[in-house]
């Protein structure tokens, strides 16, 4: 039947939630790294017991932790994230040129095939890679040397590289997304990068359809169809059918097309999940009703999923890395809130149950499907 392990990063530590294939009874362990911000944890697809965690604090900076036993024990590995070569500048909030400065690791993406290879998306935006299990990190610096980089600006949460998608059919192809620069793609394993933002329109920038400058919140890909991408932009839910060469809007009948996470059903590439949020200043569900929206048609037609979710007085947010799916049948869907709840659905979103209700604010949720 298989088992599920859900890795939860919060403002004050990490939690590991495990269940059998029924996904009814959950064992909760944690907090691991109590008191530290855990922006993201992720397991290796090639060795599910190999986990990586991004641990940081305003006092003591960045650490990377590695586990070999599915999160029971951890060891700190390398935490030196040095930009390669000339540091360069990006645009600051006041329009001045601001030197790149490392703040934290937002997202860790282990290789699909090698447990020792893992990518890190960082703030200020850059992509790093380790090929020795996290001991040493080297920047894939040509991204930050792109001609447009001096014009990149931070979003409200900082200038973070938050999304890394590895193409399972083409080892040279990687997609990344940066707030608020947009989406980029390499086809040569990071030697060169191109912006892939054609079709995005953002009213908050002077040139609405500029090549870069869009506040992309999240991109998702189904492994069976890596040329099809779906995106939750600051406003607008978007889709590309040509690996990001062009995008079209699929917001359709959503009550609001602002939001952060976006996910795809493990077995149905045209089934997409988003969590509509009222607006960029009102970071909570519209009408105080927490609703996941599901499209079974690849976008445009969306249905609210409410069974088991609070439908009154709910004013939490769901952050960009805080939604995930397992690959059991039926597909499990999970998301965490800034109110500390982690909700699980063992029936592809038809019904929801909180696994935990009172964690610190949830920053990330990753589901692992285990034998």
């Amino acid at each position, binding site marked *: 039947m298989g088992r599920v392990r859900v890795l939860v990063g919060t403002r004050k530590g990490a939690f590991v939630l495990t269940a059998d294939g029924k996904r009814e009874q959950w064992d909760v362990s944690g907090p691991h790294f109590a008191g530290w911000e855990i922006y993201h944890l992720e397991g290796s697809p090639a060795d599910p017991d190999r986990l990586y965690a991004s641990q940081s604090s305003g*006092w*003591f*900076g*960045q650490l990377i932790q590695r586990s070999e036993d599915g999160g029971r024990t951890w060891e*700190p590995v390398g935490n*030196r994230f040095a930009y390669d070569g000339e540091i360069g500048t990006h645009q600051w909030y006041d329009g001045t040129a601001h030197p790149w400065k490392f703040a934290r690791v937002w997202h860790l993406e282990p290789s699909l095939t090698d447990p020792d290879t893992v990518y890190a998306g960082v703030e200020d935006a850059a992509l790093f890679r380790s090929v020795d299990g996290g001991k040493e990190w080297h920047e894939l610096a040509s991204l930050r040397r792109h001609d447009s980089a001096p014009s990149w600006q931070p979003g409200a949460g900082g200038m973070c590289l938050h999304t890394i998608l590895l193409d399972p059919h083409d080892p040279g192809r990687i997609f990344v997304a940066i707030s608020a620069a947009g989406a980029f793609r390499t086809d040569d394993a990071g030697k060169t990068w191109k912006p892939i933002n054609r079709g995005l329109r953002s009213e908050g920038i002077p040139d609405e359809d500029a090549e870069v400058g869009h506040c992309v919140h999240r991109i998702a890909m189904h492994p069976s169809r890596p040329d099809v991408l779906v995106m939750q932009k600051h406003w607008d839910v978007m889709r590309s059918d040509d690996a990001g060469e062009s995008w079209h809007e699929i917001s359709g009948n959503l009550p609001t097309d602002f939001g952060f996470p976006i996910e795809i059903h493990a077995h149905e590439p045209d089934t997409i999940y988003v969590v509509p949020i009222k607006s960029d200043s009102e970071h909570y569900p519209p009408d105080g009703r927490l609703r996941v929206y599901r499209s079974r048609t690849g976008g445009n037609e969306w249905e609210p999923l409410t069974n088991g979710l609070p439908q009154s007085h709910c004013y939490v947010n769901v952050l960009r890395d805080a939604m995930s799916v397992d690959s059991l049948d039926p597909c499990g869907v999970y998301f965490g809130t800034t109110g500390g709840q982690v909700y699980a659905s063992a029936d592809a979103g038809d019904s929801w149950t909180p696994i935990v209700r009172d964690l610190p604010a949830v920053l990330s949720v990753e589901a692992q499907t285990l034998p």
Partner: protein
Amino acid sequence: MIRVVLPAHLRTLAHVDGEATFDIDGQATQRSVLDALEARYPMLRGTIRDHDTQQRRAFVRFFACEQDLSHEPPDAPLPDAVTAGAEPFLIVGAMAGG
């Protein structure tokens, strides 16, 4: 013998119970104490001072003998009482919430 008191989160990280104690050669300074501390506990590298610039992290302070030494030059001698092990060198997480 040098005695170093770490903040709680770094004691947990370094698996240190109580004070960290070690000997150093020559004059005790912030730099020599931190170099020796990081050599013994490599997981602390980058948590107290920047890997490359060696600058103290903004929300970390250095105290000893009821003095704030945070703004002293890294190669300035530490008080004799610290060098002699009579007083600890305190590494403190600045008072802040969040």
